[in-house]
């Protein structure tokens, strides 16, 4: 997909000052807006730790701890910016890299100093490759070399072990762990893989500090977050909100929904359906917990009344089954079976054994090399709760 349009913001930090003509901010424009980063590696780890920043790629792991783990290896490390974003309903990393690439690159360079890396690989969706390459060409970062790489456009390519295997010359498919990339990644070196938005947030924390970062948003999961809003909403696109901002307020900012919402898919294709009555839920993991949901990588889809949630889920499950790396039996056969069951439920033309479906959903999670099957069955289970 191309970069989604950027919508009027609720709270602009990452998306502050971006150009209306859709061109990326040049390095000079970026520096005028944000200044430059001037903090040593050890201090940065401390600042990020105190900020409470968590990964924005879906996992939600504390970024400070990840930095500290790679730094603690004491070896020369590699930084990989994960901008693969192979998930159809997600567009926020593409928007960030297309409009404000230098913020992500500043974060990557600062992280490189923190983990003693001299090499940064910016792994991106091909639609933003040219923008990132131009941005890299503008820069001159002492002691750090940056290069951009286009990642194959498939769902599992953004999984961190898949990225590492791809960068090592192999297929962009997940590998069995351990070792995790922070132990043994690109060329066998300790490798910090961080989502593009996470690094952009880190670049702001490096300039303005943890108190500033925590001054907005939900205390447990502070700061702002990029949300990709899609479905039956008047102005779909990428929004920056403070965490904890109510979904209803975000929908109002987006010009409202077209028709009464029946349900929301929160957290993207690995996400969780929540009912339309939950429209006032705060968009933070604390608030979403009541519905068994998390914000994941920030994709929210609005499903209108009169549309079958089961049919929509069947479509997504078929996609996820087709996008399986095809490496692990429980994922290959399990997701295909669950997708078939949902197709049956959606068409109502054949009997689906609900007990068997529930058993399948309980037996698949945790049995693949990566979290692909776990995400798919979580989505399926939430659809049964909300629609059936």
């Amino acid at each position, binding site marked *: 997909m191309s970069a989604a349009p950027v919508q009027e913001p609720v709270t602009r930090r990452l998306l502050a000052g971006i150009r209306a003509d859709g061109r990326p901010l040049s390095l000079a424009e970026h520096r005028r807006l944000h200044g430059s980063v001037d903090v040593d590696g050890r201090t940065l780890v401390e600042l990020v730790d105190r900020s409470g920043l968590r990964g924005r790629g879906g996992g939600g792991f504390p970024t400070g701890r990840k930095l500290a783990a790679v730094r603690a290896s004491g070896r020369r490390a590699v930084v990989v910016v994960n901008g693969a974003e192979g998930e159809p309903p997600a567009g926020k990393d593409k928007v960030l890299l297309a409009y404000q690439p230098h913020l992500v690159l500043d974060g990557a360079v600062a992280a490189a100093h923190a983990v003693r890396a001299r090499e940064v690989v910016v792994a991106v969706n091909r639609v933003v490759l040219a923008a990132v390459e131009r941005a890299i060409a503008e820069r001159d970062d002492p002691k750090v070399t940056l290069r951009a790489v286009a990642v194959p456009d498939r769902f599992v390519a953004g999984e961190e072990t898949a990225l590492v295997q791809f960068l090592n010359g192999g297929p962009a498919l997940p590998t069995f762990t351990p070792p995790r990339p922070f132990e043994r990644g690109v060329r066998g070196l300790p490798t910090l893989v961080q989502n593009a938005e996470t690094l952009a947030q880190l670049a702001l924390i490096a300039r303005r500090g943890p108190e500033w970062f925590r001054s907005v948003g939900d205390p447990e999961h502070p700061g702002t977050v990029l949300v990709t809003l899609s479905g039956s909403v008047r102005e779909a696109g990428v929004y920056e909100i403070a965490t904890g901002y109510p979904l209803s307020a975000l929908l109002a900012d987006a010009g409202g929904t077209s028709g009464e919402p029946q349900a929301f898919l929160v957290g993207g294709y690995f996400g969780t359906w929540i009912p339309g009555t939950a429209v006032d839920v705060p968009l933070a993991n604390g608030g979403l917990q009541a519905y068994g949901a998390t914000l994941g990588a920030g994709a929210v889809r609005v499903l209108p009344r009169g549309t079958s949630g089961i049919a929509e889920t069947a479509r997504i499950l078929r996609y996820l089954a087709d996008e399986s790396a095809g490496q692990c039996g429980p994922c290959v056969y399990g997701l295909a079976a669950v997708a078939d069951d949902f197709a049956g439920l959606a068409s109502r033309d054949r009997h689906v054994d609900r007990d068997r479906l529930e058993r399948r959903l309980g*037996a698949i999670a945790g049995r*693949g090399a990566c979290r692909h099957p776990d995400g798919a069955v979580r989505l399926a289970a939430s659809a049964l709760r909300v629609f059936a």
Partner: protein
Amino acid sequence: MSDLELRVDPIACDGHGLCAELFPERVSLDEWGYPIVDATPIPRSLEQHAKRAAKECPVLALRLKRRAG
């Protein structure tokens, strides 16, 4: 309790199913023939069964791993 745990490398596993035959105390098969492994620590009395199952796996996908800590 021993400090051994059983784990499957799901990429290597081809679903031969030998592990469930050799170590039924801890391994069952799903409807497609792939192992569902109980990953809780293995009692000493079962250690020999576990080791044999791991050794006999035709693709060496069944791993015995020392518990961390």
